[in-house]
């Protein structure tokens, strides 16, 4: 563990409107890690993920990719960094005027500057990977929530990211659609993708995650393997059992 992490964050602090949203947060993601952020809403999970991708600039702290510090003021470096960090959003954020296929392809052409042909081939592959080869011609308005999120995953994967950040990828989905998205995430994790995911799917996460990080009031207050944390007396355990009780889910 002395190697540089794939993605590192050191002492990230973010204030908004006089409130401290992130309070000196540090974390590292090593190759193949699946780490899971859990905790109450407003605890800073989403802000942390957006800071890690520098979609929000923290006041203090340093983000690094494979040991190299990122300087957000350098536009080239920022764009290159973001290409290598895939981001999945709670409400998908597919480009509404583009078909599923074009959604996956557009950044390959406009950002990575691939030829249209190479970009199209790659887009086909990634849509196939998430099981949507036959839906490429459909527009976001014609896709179910689960399909939209799978297109979003394909779009991120097409950029060959070194790490993926997932911000509650199933929270906006109808219950019967959650499974198809979780299956894609599971495949990715088993294929060795390095990932950090904020989620309330604690049962799923407990089976797959290398580490749980419990966030509250802008800090990581508990951190450890699901086994270590899912024991009586921890906040993680109290939180998870409350969620699973509400969802009628058997704790994983």
């Amino acid at each position, binding site marked *: 563990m002395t190697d540089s992490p794939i993605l590192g964050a050191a002492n990230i602090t973010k204030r908004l409107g006089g409130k401290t949203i992130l309070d000196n947060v540090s974390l590292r993601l090593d190759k193949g890690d699946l780490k899971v952020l859990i905790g109450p809403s407003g605890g800073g999970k989403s802000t942390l993920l957006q800071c890690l991708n520098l979609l929000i600039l923290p006041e203090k702290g340093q983000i690094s990719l494979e040991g190299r510090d990122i300087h957000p003021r350098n536009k080239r470096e920022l*764009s290159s960094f*973001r290409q290598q*960090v895939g*981001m999945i*959003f709670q409400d998908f*954020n597919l*480009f509404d*005027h583009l078909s599923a296929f074009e959604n996956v392809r557009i950044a390959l052409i406009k*950002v990575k500057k691939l030829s249209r042909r190479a970009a199209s081939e790659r887009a086909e592959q990634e849509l196939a990977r998430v099981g949507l080869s036959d839906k490429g011609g459909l527009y976001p308005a014609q896709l179910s929530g689960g399909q939209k999120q799978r297109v979003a995953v394909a779009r991120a994967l097409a*950029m060959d990211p070194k790490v993926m950040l997932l911000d509650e990828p199933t929270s906006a989905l109808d219950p019967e659609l959650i499974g198809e998205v979780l299956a894609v995430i599971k495949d990715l994790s088993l294929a060795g993708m390095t990932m950090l995911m904020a989620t309330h799917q604690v049962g799923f996460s407990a089976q797959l995650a290398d580490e749980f990080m419990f966030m509250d009031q802008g800090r990581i207050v508990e951190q450890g393997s699901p086994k270590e944390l899912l024991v009586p007396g921890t906040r993680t355990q109290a939180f998870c059992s409350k969620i699973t009780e509400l969802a009628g889910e058997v704790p994983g």
Partner: protein
Amino acid sequence: MNLDPEFLRELFSALNKGLFVSLQLIIPSALLGIAIGIVVGIVRVYGPKPLRTVADGYVALFRGTPLVAQLFMWYYGLPNLGIMLSASAAAIVGFGMCSGAYHSEYIRGGLLSIKRGQLTAAQALGFSPVATIATIILPQAIRRALPGCGNEIIYLIKYSSLAHLVTCLDLTGEAYGMAARTYEFTAVFLVTGAYYLILVSLATILLARVEQSLSLPGFERKRGPQ
């Protein structure tokens, strides 16, 4: 009302000439107006503060003053600064600048209607701000702004009739000359009105075609009952 065939022949010949001149004013000024509207609309939403202030000032000025006064400034005022515009150039610039101010408002509305997540997602993929606006935001915003912009083009067709005030012999200019010569104001302007009605109807059909060709699932031209 005079329905003498000789008079009617003369009338239609004059109005057809005027129509041709009007089209030469309307088409370039409509394109100029849209181009200005898009640029100014983008600046007003995404531009840096000083530029935004300039754009807001432009809109306030050109929406807030009578078009006649603007046309006179372009045609009679500018020569005082050593800039001479021909009558038709003054009309095209005048109409385009005025139309652009209105278009920018429709474009601005279109831009503001696009969810922030579209921008965030593009940034997360490494798009530069300019590429984000050009390839992700604007194509959606224009589809949303199209009905309003179409409305503005129809206004433009009608206010192009002010061109005769800066000596263009457009449709209204020819009509006015004809009426002054013959005193047949009713007949002349009844027919002239019909010319504008036909122009506007053709423009409406054309605009509907454009809207239809840009229509996508989620950006439909018409939305039936759900």
